């Protein structure tokens, strides 16, 4: 078995490691950085050759949906189409065809492919809290918090599993913010436009 190699992350100098080693601590001779390396079995694994699709031997064999001249080896777990070894893409425990993967990524149905999510619950909470704290903006922020909570009730949230509780709290705080800001506005209006105030001025 040939020696496996790893590279220093700073200067990219390659080091060869004897098979079976599981830990190495040394200084890089080029950049003098102290390196602490832990190896896992995959490091010593020989490169896996790709499986090329085989051509159809006769017309009785099942062919790939995307490559009619190639032999089908699997059924896509998404759409059920027969696919060749080239089109069968392993994703976790499933084997999917390229179309299912691109459609799943577009619709956000394959969680493993999701690279980003918006935290609407945090947006709603922030709007509600700021609506309560800044009472004169509460008339705008509180309804916005309620709107975001209802509009994105079913939108996918964080992958880390934050529940709908934050939306419920945002709605409650939003209603409270509306009540507070209306009361303050009403109070101010009464004070400003009270008849006694206008009569007292000469």
């Amino acid at each position, binding site marked *: *078995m040939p020696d496996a190699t*790893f590279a*220093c*992350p*700073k200067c990219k100098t390659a080091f060869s490691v004897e*098979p*079976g080693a599981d830990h190495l601590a040394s200084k890089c001779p080029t950049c003098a*950085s*102290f*390196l*602490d*390396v*832990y*190896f*896992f*079995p*995959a*490091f*010593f*694994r*020989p490169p896996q050759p790709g499986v090329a699709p085989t051509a159809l031997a006769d017309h009785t064999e099942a062919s790939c949906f995307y490559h009619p001249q190639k032999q089908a080896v699997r059924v896509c777990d998404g759409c059920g189409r027969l696919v060749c070894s080239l089109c069968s893409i392993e994703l*976790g425990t499933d084997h999917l065809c390229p179309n299912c993967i691109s459609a799943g990524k577009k619709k956000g149905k394959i969680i*493993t492919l*999701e*690279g*980003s*999510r*918006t*935290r609407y619950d*945090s*947006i709603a909470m*922030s709007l509600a809290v700021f609506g309560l704290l800044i009472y004169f903006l509460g008339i705008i922020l509180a309804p916005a918090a309620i709107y975001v909570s209802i509009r994105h009730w079913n939108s996918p*949230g*964080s*992958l*880390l*599993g934050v*529940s709908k509780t934050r939306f419920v709290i945002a709605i409650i705080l939003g209603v409270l913010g509306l009540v507070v800001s209306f009361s303050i506005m009403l109070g101010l209006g009464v004070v400003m436009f009270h008849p006694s105030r206008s009569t007292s001025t000469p």
Partner: protein
Amino acid sequence: MKSQYKPIKGIGTGRGRPAAIRVRLYEGPDHLLLVYSAGYTEDYKRVFYRDIRYAIARKDRGQVWQGILSGCCILAACLLFLMPVPWMVTAILWLIISLPFLFHFAGNLFLGPTCRIYLNTDVQTVELPVPRRLGRLPKLVAFLNTKISPEQPKVEQAVT
């Protein structure tokens, strides 16, 4: 909704680039999930256990710089003793101002050298913003070993 991810204990939270981004590590069913939180969005990066070839840590000078910074702040607070006020008042003021820096200085010494950790797979090298201390690397490696062992066959098995 119950999540399939669990936070990895004892690893801590790190800062991405820019520093406003908070990074945490989560344990997934067959992969490690890096979550980059930037206020109202979360970005995810996955490293599958079966693909990890090695974990490499490169020691950096973060501990030295942090020590110098907090040391300078403590020394700057000592300028209070030049003020023409009673010694007792100055000492209390100095303690109030420099206590957070003293804690940081001591914690920085206690936690040990800082490092940058990378996970290598066949196609990429991913930098892990956490853990930042070299002393915590064995904990991460122990966690990875428990997850990787069932996913990656031993070399002899892989060859035969």
